């Protein structure tokens, strides 16, 4: 084994209230493929951002070619030969492949005029594309390329930067089977040429095939390192899970009643080839688990009328519900607490009061004119009911903490008559105290007959709150799990596309 050129020792990153990365050590040698696996939020992204110089670690050291330092800068990381192929590609679609590969480093001509030498540009780009077996030329506009081909451009760019280490973050998540096959071959070729690869993927079968070594992260810690012979999906899953989950579960007051929300063969614009069917019963919290990109948010957006329904039917209380727009969905009593609170849930510059009454303003108005007294009263009532920590409801929503902001979003819907509430990541960016208040509230609502569908990437939340869980994988429901069968193992197995054992 050659001496590693990159060593990270005891790296930590602390954000307020959370240790995203906790004392992780990892080293990379020449020509080695390292698989990096872990659940959503295990610390993979933060670790890679530290490696890219985007985020400074709170502790630990990084040693690159024998030089020890506290942190990498973006430039230093690049000069050190570290390159990224991101999940969302960072390409200029309006430029050609060659122009993207050499962006910022274009060969020039014309002296002081600084014109781009297009011929030279294409000539230089060609060998990198050939090396990767690309079947398009350097002059091809990126906009005309498929996602897999764009990835090749990114990799070619990395190679042209003399990268020694290419970090691929979920590179196969949107590729077809044959495109994935080709990417795995390219990884093998890179390895043969002495380039190292860190391969981050939820698709464990691909990790199994391509990695020489696998590092498993959980809760910001490195929990296992598996050698070539130990890399099996089951072993990886076993290490990815296994936290002791706090017993937050509050059972429902009475057994669930009749279905209140039914999706029958619903097709979304995101993955129209998959039909989703599920039902939420009265008095039940149905968790919707799955990995990032499995189509949960898109499903919620479709059911709430934000995206066109490509097929199937949504029923509320057994009646087909017209959900052509959010206002139609709201009229049916179906409300959504969105994932991105600041962008979609709130108008952060608006006072708390106006946020609370925004969806229901007509009730506090006569002949189109707002009754400010009634509005204030309604807002104060919700503030007291949900214990929103603010002295005045005229303060802007932006002045509140994350948890209290989420309560304002909830207050907006609770001042109306919810039949079904869809929560998308209900406690993201919410502190522990407010979290348990939100869970308590969800149970209270469900006991009052509201059907609750909760999308969550937080295992603790899924297992701690749901009465039943549906797991999504690549746009379809991979399976349902009853309360008794809930475990990280069973959820994760379904989420990565394996049939439950």
């Amino acid at each position: 084994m050659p001496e590693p050129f990159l060593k990270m020792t005891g790296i930590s990153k602390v954000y307020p209230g959370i240790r995203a990365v906790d004392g992780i050590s990892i080293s990379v040698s020449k020509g080695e493929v390292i698989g990096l696996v872990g659940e959503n939020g295990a610390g993979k992204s933060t670790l890679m951002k530290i490696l890219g110089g985007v985020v400074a670690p709170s502790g630990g050291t990084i040693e690159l070619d024998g030089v020890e330092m506290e942190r990498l800068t973006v430039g230093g990381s690049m000069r050190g030969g570290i390159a990224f192929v991101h999940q969302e590609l960072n390409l200029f679609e309006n430029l050609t492949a060659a122009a993207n590969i050499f962006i910022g480093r274009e060969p020039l001509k014309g002296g002081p005029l600084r014109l781009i030498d297009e011929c030279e540009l294409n000539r230089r780009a060609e060998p990198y594309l050939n090396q990767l077996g690309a079947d398009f030329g350097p002059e091809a506009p990126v906009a005309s390329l498929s996602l897999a081909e764009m990835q090749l451009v990114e990799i070619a760019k990395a190679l042209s930067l003399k990268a020694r280490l290419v970090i691929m973050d979920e590179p196969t998540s949107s590729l077809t089977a044959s495109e994935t096959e080709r990417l795995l071959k390219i990884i093998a070729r890179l390895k043969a040429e002495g380039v190292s690869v860190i391969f981050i993927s939820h698709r464990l079968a691909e990790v199994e095939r391509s990695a020489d070594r696998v590092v498993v992260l959980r809760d910001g810690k490195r929990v296992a390192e598996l050698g070539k012979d130990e890399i099996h999906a089951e072993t990886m899953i076993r290490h990815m899970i296994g936290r002791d989950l706090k017993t937050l579960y509050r059972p429902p007051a009475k057994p669930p009643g009749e279905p209140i929300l039914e999706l029958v063969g619903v097709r979304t614009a995101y993955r129209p080839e998959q039909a989703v069917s599920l039902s939420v019963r009265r008095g039940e919290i149905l968790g919707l688990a799955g990995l990032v990109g499995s189509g949960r948010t898109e499903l919620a957006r479709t059911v709430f009328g934000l995206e066109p329904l490509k097929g199937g039917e949504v029923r509320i209380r057994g009646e087909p519900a017209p959900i052509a727009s959010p206002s139609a969905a709201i009229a049916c009593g179906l409300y959504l607490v969105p994932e991105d609170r600041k962008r979609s849930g709130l108008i952060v510059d608006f006072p708390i009061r106006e946020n609370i009454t925004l969806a229901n303003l007509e009730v506090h108005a006569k002949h189109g004119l707002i009754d400010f007294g009634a509005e204030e009263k309604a807002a104060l009532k919700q503030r007291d009911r949900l214990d929103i920590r603010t002295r005045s409801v005229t303060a802007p929503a932006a002045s509140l903490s994350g948890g209290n902001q989420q309560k304002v979003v909830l207050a907006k819907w609770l001042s109306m008559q919810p039949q079904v509430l869809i929560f998308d990541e209900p406690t993201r960016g919410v502190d522990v105290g407010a979290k348990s208040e939100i869970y308590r509230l969800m149970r209270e609502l469900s006991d009052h007959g509201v059907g609750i569908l909760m999308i969550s990437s937080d295992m603790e939340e899924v297992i701690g709150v749901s009465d039943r869980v549906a797991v999504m994988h690549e746009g379809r429901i991979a399976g349902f799990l009853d309360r008794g069968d809930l475990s990280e193992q069973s959820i994760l197995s379904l989420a990565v596309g394996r049939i439950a054992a």
Partner: protein
Amino acid sequence: MINRKDLWLLVLIIVVGAVVAIINPRFLSPINLSNTANLIGLFGIFAVAQAFVIISGGIELSVGSVIALLGVIFIDLVASEAVNPGLAFVIVVAIGCLIGLLHGFLVAKLGLQPFVVTLCGLLIYRGIARYYTEDATAGFPFGASFPTLEWLVAGRFYGIPHSLIAFIAITLVMGVVLHKSVFGRYLFAVGKNEEAARYSGIHTARITIAAYVICCGLTAVAAVFIAMYTRSISPSSHGNFYELYAIAAAVLGGCSLRGGEGSIVGVVLGTVLLQVLQNLVNLLGIPSSLNFAVMGSVILIGVLADQQISRRAVRVKAPAG
């Protein structure tokens, strides 16, 4: 209702007014005040109109051309076609609303950029106005007289021009619509964060379209007043740059071109300040060719000062929070 920003603007108007009055006492003469009031009324109506579109997050650049086209149509209907002036007024306002409907539809339903849509409007309506009159000046024939109409729109009540009275009435109604009605709240919501508004079940497209209809409808009202004030319209220059007066008044009055911010009081004060400045240029003997330069400089200084003040406010708040 009046906020700190508006208060500053009011102080600025009083200071500028006082300085002008000291240098040239004619500023306070009844005839000058009455004339300035008339101009404030005329320009104020379409400045308030513009504010609705700006608060929705858009912009309306075709104001001047709409004023020319509708003015020409109004005079033609009354003078040549002998249409009852009241009916002609209704027709012109209806056409204005239709123009707004078209703009709103293109922006909200087809997703075109407001700047582009209304820039095309600016060119198109100007062209139609010129073609309609064959580029000749539209006016009332010699000796023709419409005493009731003229008294109504260009008359004075104890020296107060009716245009100012109309402006005050429109401002009061529109102030209630903007600051007290459900529609007004939705308009601010759409302008501030369209996505969150949509997630709250607001029909965002309808709100945006309504903003353009209100804007162009009120602009049509202004067009009639302005036509009767000038009495003759040369379609190639009538109303030129008026959209910029409106935008300037709105911005001075605290409207953000990013949408979601602004108040009726602010727009009124912005209009008053602009007209006082115009008057200042005339009374102080500043070459009238510098007119736009003075206006531009004052707006720039105002916006800069506002930004510096609000930045300082943020800095003062930051360590405490």
